[in-house]
């Protein structure tokens, strides 16, 4: 019953991987060690072995109640196992076609946790007023979509929910009849020979007798119902069994992505079925995993229960709003279909089905539910330098000085936990940091910022004002009795944790970050308005707790157990911290908070990183697919620690890692306290020069990154776009996760993550010309897909620009990004096969919220032939805001937009200093601003975009066209 084969298989797998030395598999449960997961898998296994298996759950047709005017209905659900236990079903269709299915136990002994979605959603979704349900004898149906292509069918007997598109099933809930919501019972009643307790009514006692007859479904024994011990910690499970098993099937989709965070491929490998890659299910249980493995289904720091299912025909997705420990089995019964099985420890069933049908639609649908990623401060896209630990204020100053001596750009210096006296966060260790505010002013004088760590564990000592105030307010997490403060161990020794589920903690926490005195209340006067925050250890990590976290029977606000809210718990700290940073200054500045733990919706509040990775090639590689997976699940402001947290990477590896980092949305170098210092200036030549070039390249491309973040902010489309997102119909690209596009810029990068590489293959999915960003070499793709070989010696990054793109850069090296505000732009025009190219540029002040009032510049650049037969090309700059007033900024419709807004005016004099046009058919006769004088230009003959030739492309460099970045203009290239 325990399936020992799986257990030992998992162990063998762990042991056979060389990098597993640090990972302590004994610290974390396997499915077989978690009672409810064991039960869930056993259920699936019984179902597989039983040809006449049928779901015991059915809808009581007499109870169906359809709302008038809104696309929702409710109904009672019964289980043939427990006829007296009542369940309620609630199915709704939102105005964008997303289907929400909820099921809960009704009038049970206790209440299941039903608030997970409320923490993730931005607002209660609006229900469709057009779509209507048709109640039939066997099912309830609704048809919708512009061509009536979508249909939702809720079958009554047994309960089964499916979404169809053009008659083809896309998503099916309970299609494999694994749905099981364990109802609440009393401990005594669940024992066959148990006698009913006083006050327990007869009906409950009746249930007792029926345990055995249900063995075909629930198994012979009550496995781990009431108590569970792991690693010396006992979970008392006062509520008993309450798990939820749900199968979600994608009968016509052969690839699934998402459910971060796991160190694995973007295209999720299988965990069950024939010859599965992993023997354990993917797990979502936010965990601080020491030296995690580079390929594993083990749960990591954050959880987003969102899964995309993809095929050449369509993309669909589900968001399973559950916050408890959740295990997910993935299997492809055929190459074109996917079975998944979700086993959660507690909570209601609350699943959102997104109909797609394209990846971009999914992003919009998901963003409508949980919000888009916040538009970050511009500087946050620069290079971040961190270490555990810069040991003193002078150390920070000296690191800054060395960066400047070597003319390497950096925007942010970070302080890890050792700045804090006895790890009492906020409180400076004045021995080593005697003048923190002066230090920050020294850093800020160059336009830079500091990020300081604030962890959620509070040292339990009354001389620590943050702990004292939290304790006095009564907003700390309680231990299982529900009355005493929970005490656990973390960096600060004996510690307590703020219960951010308690609204009483919110205003207080927001107040702490004020850098002016707040009277009686403590506030962080030893900080500045440019001090930003890093929230780590918020899984929460508890050194002496079960699985290095809190006991599941700890009690949160509202009486909920920790087990119910664990996966949400981590995101509340960064969410509130981010609000605190907005609240501390007037006018408010955009916040920056980096978090290690996250959940659906975290993207609205800040950035994440992939935690404590290792300085190995494997981790470098998996970091990329992890960032891609986080991105498609909304958490797009993501990166992995450059260099690897643990270990001392050799120079070659470090160079490659900076190349990876420079093409991550979040770009931070970090290192463990036991490592040698490895700031880029410390390397010898030629490596140091390579690192300087990489850092500078990142800075030249900041306009591209910022524009991609703007896209993510308004549309919810991730900054890094995997192949299946850009080419959803190209089967060959569905499993690609080592090359990706940056926003819609047309830049395709494939960072090298192996040793001794001099060239690499890049996959081109279309019949189009792609230019090497650096050498302008023209490669040709094919409509069937084609691999081309791109030079990739250590100083080279395989970076291509797709024909048809125009990208905007700023090529003057600066010490930090705010010092680039007045620098001129360079436009790279990569003509496609028909002589066309397009690109966009978004700019604002990068720091405040004045963009919400329309203080922005959003331009479109188009290069096209003046006439079909003509070779003459006209490149124009036009205003995108006036074309999209309701989409230009997130959530605000700009009813009156002034192209000459304050920001636009401030950059009016910023010019395009250079234009590079790739792929022209021949030397131009003339290049001029429309109606202006001839411009100075230089033409290097080469391969034209049209045709089939590969080789060095023709390049036209136009010197200083003298046009403003913020204004309309056009430049005519007469060939």
């Amino acid at each position, binding site marked *: 019953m325990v399936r020992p084969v799986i257990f030992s298989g998992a162990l063998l797998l762990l042991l056979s991987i060389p990098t597993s030395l640090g990972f302590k598999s004994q610290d974390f449960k396997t499915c077989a060690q978690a009672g409810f997961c064991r039960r869930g898998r056993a259920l699936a296994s019984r179902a597989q072995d039983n040809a006449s298996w049928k779901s015991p759950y059915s809808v009581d047709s007499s109870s169906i109640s359809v709302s008038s005017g809104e696309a929702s209905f409710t109904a009672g659900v019964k289980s043939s196992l427990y006829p007296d236990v009542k369940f309620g079903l609630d199915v709704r269709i939102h105005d964008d076609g997303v289907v929400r299915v909820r099921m809960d136990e009704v009038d049970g002994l206790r209440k299941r946790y039903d608030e997970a979605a409320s923490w993730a959603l931005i607002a209660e979704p609006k229900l469709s007023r057009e779509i209507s349900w048709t109640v039939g004898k066997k099912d309830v149906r609704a048809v919708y979509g512009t061509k009536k292509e979508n249909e939702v069918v809720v079958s009554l007997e047994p309960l089964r929910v499916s979404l169809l598109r053009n008659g083809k099933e896309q998503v099916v809930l309970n299609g494999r009849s694994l749905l099981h919501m364990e109802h609440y019972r009393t401990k005594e009643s669940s024992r066959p020979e148990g006698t009913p307790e006083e006050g327990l009514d007869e009906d409950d006692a009746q249930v007792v007798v029926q345990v055995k007859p249900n063995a075909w479904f629930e198994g012979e024994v009550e496995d781990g119902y009431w108590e569970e011990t792991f690693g010396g910690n006992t979970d008392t499970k006062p509520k008993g069994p309450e798990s939820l098993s749900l199968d979600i099937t994608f009968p016509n989709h052969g690839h699934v992505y998402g459910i971060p965070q796991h160190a694995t491929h973007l295209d999720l490998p299988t965990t069950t079925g024939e010859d599965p890659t992993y023997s354990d299910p993917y797990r979502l249980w936010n965990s601080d995993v020491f030296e995690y493995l580079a390929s594993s289904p083990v749960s990591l720091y954050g959880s987003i229960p969102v899964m995309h299912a993809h095929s050449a025909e369509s993309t669909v997705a589900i968001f399973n709003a559950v916050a408890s420990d959740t295990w997910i089995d993935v299997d492809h019964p055929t190459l074109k279909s996917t079975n998944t099985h979700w086993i959660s420890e507690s909570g209601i069933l609350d699943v959102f089905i997104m109909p797609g049908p394209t990846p971009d639609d999914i992003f919009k649908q998901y963003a409508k539910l949980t919000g888009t990623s916040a538009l970050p401060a511009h500087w946050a896209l620069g290079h971040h330098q961190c270490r555990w630990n810069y*040991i*003193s204020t*002078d*150390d920070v100053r000296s690191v800054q000085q060395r960066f400047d001596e070597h*003319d390497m*750009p950096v925007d942010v210096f970070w302080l890890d936990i050792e700045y804090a006296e006895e*790890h009492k966060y906020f409180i400076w260790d004045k*021995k080593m940091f005697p003048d923190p505010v002066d230090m920050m*002013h020294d850093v*800020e*004088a*160059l*336009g830079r910022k500091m990020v300081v760590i604030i962890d959620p564990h509070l040292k339990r000592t009354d001389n620590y004002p943050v702990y004292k105030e939290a304790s006095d307010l009564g907003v700390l997490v309680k231990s299982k009795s529900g009355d005493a403060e929970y005490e656990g*161990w*973390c*960096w*600060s*020794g004996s510690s307590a944790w703020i219960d951010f589920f308690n609204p009483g903690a919110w205003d207080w926490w927001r107040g702490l970050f004020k850098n002016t005195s707040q009277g009686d209340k403590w506030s962080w006067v030893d900080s500045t308005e440019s001090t930003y925050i890093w929230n780590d250890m918020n899984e929460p990590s508890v*050194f*002496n707790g079960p699985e*290095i976290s809190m006991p599941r029977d700890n009690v949160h606000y509202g009486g909920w157990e920790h087990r119910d809210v664990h996966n949400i718990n981590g995101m509340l700290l960064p969410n509130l911290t981010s609000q605190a940073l907005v609240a501390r200054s007037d006018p408010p500045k955009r916040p920056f908070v980096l978090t290690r733990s996250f959940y659906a919706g975290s993207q609205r509040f800040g950035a994440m990183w992939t935690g404590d990775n290792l300085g190995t090639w494997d981790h470098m590689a998996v970091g990329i697919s992890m960032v891609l997976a986080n991105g498609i699940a909304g958490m797009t402001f993501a990166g992995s620690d450059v260099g690897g947290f643990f270990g001392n990477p050799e120079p070659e590896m470090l160079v490659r890692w900076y190349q990876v980092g420079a093409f991550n949305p979040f770009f931070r170098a970090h290192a463990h*306290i*036991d*490592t*040698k*210092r490895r700031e880029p200036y410390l390397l010898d030549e030629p490596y140091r020069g390579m690192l300087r070039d990489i850092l*500078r390249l990142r800075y030249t491309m900041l306009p591209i990154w910022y524009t991609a973040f703007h896209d993510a902010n308004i549309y919810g489309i991730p900054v890094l776009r995997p192949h299946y997102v850009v080419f959803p119909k190209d089967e060959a690209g569905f499993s690609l996760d080592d090359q990706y596009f940056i926003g819609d810029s047309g830049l395709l990068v494939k960072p090298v993550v192996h040793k001794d590489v001099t060239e690499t293959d890049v996959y081109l999915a279309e019949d189009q010309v792609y230019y090497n960003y650096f050498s302008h070499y023209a490669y040709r793709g094919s409509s069937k897909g084609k691999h081309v070989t791109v030079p990739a010696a250590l100083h080279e990054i395989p970076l291509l620009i797709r024909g048809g793109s125009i990208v905007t850069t700023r*090529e*003057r*090296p*600066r*010490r930090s990004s*705010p*010092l*680039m*505000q*007045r620098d*001129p732009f360079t436009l790279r025009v990569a003509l496609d096969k028909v002589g066309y190219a397009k690109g966009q540029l978004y700019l604002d002040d990068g720091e405040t919220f004045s963009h919400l009032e329309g203080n922005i510049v959003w331009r479109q650049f188009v290069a096209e032939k003046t006439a079909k037969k003509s070779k003459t090309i006209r490149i124009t700059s036009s205003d995108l805001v006036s074309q999209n007033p309701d989409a230009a900024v997130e959530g605000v419709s700009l009813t009156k937009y002034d192209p000459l807004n304050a920001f636009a*005016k*401030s950059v*009016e*004099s910023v*010019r395009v*200093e*250079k234009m590079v046009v790739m792929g022209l058919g021949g030397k131009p006769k003339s290049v001029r*601003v429309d109606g*202006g004088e001839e411009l100075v230009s230089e033409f290097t003959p080469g391969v034209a975009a049209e045709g089939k030739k590969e080789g060095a492309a023709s390049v036209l460099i136009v*010197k*200083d066209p*003298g*046009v*403003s970045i913020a204004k309309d203009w056009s430049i005519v290239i007469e060939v």
Partner: protein
Amino acid sequence: MRSSVCLGAMAPLFSLLVPLSALAAGVDKTHGVAPNLLSHYVPLKTASSPGTWKCLDGSKEILWSSVNDDYCDCPDGSDEPGTGACPNSTLYCINEGHIGSSIPASRVNDGLCEAECCDGSDELPGVCPNVCKEVGEAYRKVQEEQRKIRKKGSKIRSSYISFAQKEKKRLEGVIETSTQEIAVREKEVERLRDLVEQSESLSAAALEHRKASPLYETLIAHSNALKSLQREHKKHLEREKELGNILDALRTGYNPNYQDMAVLEAVRGWESLAGLPHINDVGKEEEESDEGAVVKAEEEEEEMDDDEWTAEELEKDLDNLLKTDYVSLLLEHDKHVNSPMTESILFELSSYLPDSLVPQYEAFRDTLVSWLQMLGVIRGGVAQENAGEDSKLRQKLNDAEHSLRQANDEKRKAEKDLNELFDREHYGAEGEWKKLEKTCLEKEVGDYTYEVCLFDEARQKPNKGGQTFSLGKFRSWNPDVQPDDPAYYTKQVYNAGAKCWNGPNRSVMLLLSCGTENTIHTVAEPEKCEYHFTGTSPALCLPLAETAEGKKDEL
């Protein structure tokens, strides 16, 4: 913030109406050109009307109007010395009233006023004020201060040099004396060796026969076994010490907050074995009692037989015992076996004894013998047998050889010291560092006092009790540069200190500069167990005349 002020101030400078030509169109062609390159910044003398100019690397000929036009034409960046348009160019600030200096392109026209460009020439006119007068004055003041320190320091330094000179004389004296002594001793040894050889050659064959005695062979075997045991014992002692260091490091260095129970158990085990208080309690006990928290390890009284050696005896006397001349002993033994006289023990015991004990023993023996003679217990002045004569001769030879060795050692040491004294890789070309040999400098930081005894060892001493760790032994001066580099004596390396738990052996980089005192200013641990000390020493204060010239060149 200075930066925002500058950025703000820049905005109105941009023209709103004219088509955007290069922002620096008005920039002078020679703006930012270093004085030694000024002569290159003139248009080429050609007939053509719009003048041209050649990039400094000769790679390209461009229009003269393209120089400093805020667009990078030359691959070497030489056409934009004053605008920052070329990433690889530099701008020279004249800084009249102060010292001229160059800044990289990344700092030109970035809105910030560079400290290196006090004349404000790094930004467009009007953005940065010219503050060279004040900056220059302040700079000169600092220079004057430093000059004063240097002057005072160099006086002290010259006293160090005279110390070295005296030391040199002393050492030369020692060498001379010991050379003479060696000559005398060598003769004596030669004489004795001849005598011994004569005497022993007579009985060589007999000796060989005796050596075949099982007793002798066993003795040799025992001796070898004992030597091996001693060697192994020493190894174990070293291992034990090393283990102790590792465990001490673990005890003080491990993160007690972390959940690793295996580590905690190891620490507690070690504490109980070594009789140390639990590390987490150290601070507490400090607070509670003034007596200090260190509980001395309870020395358990070991039970042992009376004639067994104590550990101290083992350490002191075993070496000497093993130096026994077994051949002499064999001869002694013969005599002993043949005529069972008391004498041999009393008279020849000296050959078993360590050299250091011989004089006392001999005095004691003489007294005892005279007493015994008086009491008639032994006979005095008995004729010695040949074997005894041999052995005595040999003893004399041994003594003479020993003295010769001592004299040689003394000479060698003096020669070595003399060599090091003016060795540039040791006490410096002028021996200026000799005075500071084993001078210990201390700095208290947090819970520890850090100490470096120059040319010897660096240590970390806890202020509240606990183990002192070696941070390393003197290894070398600055290994990154040659001894003739001025930076050579600004850095000392101490390494191979106590090993860190989960880390490297501790080491120290001592960074020194000229100062009037020998002192440590700062101690930092930028990487785990790798310490950086900064400090000053007068030994680094070169006389002003020498430096003044160097400085002028730099200016």
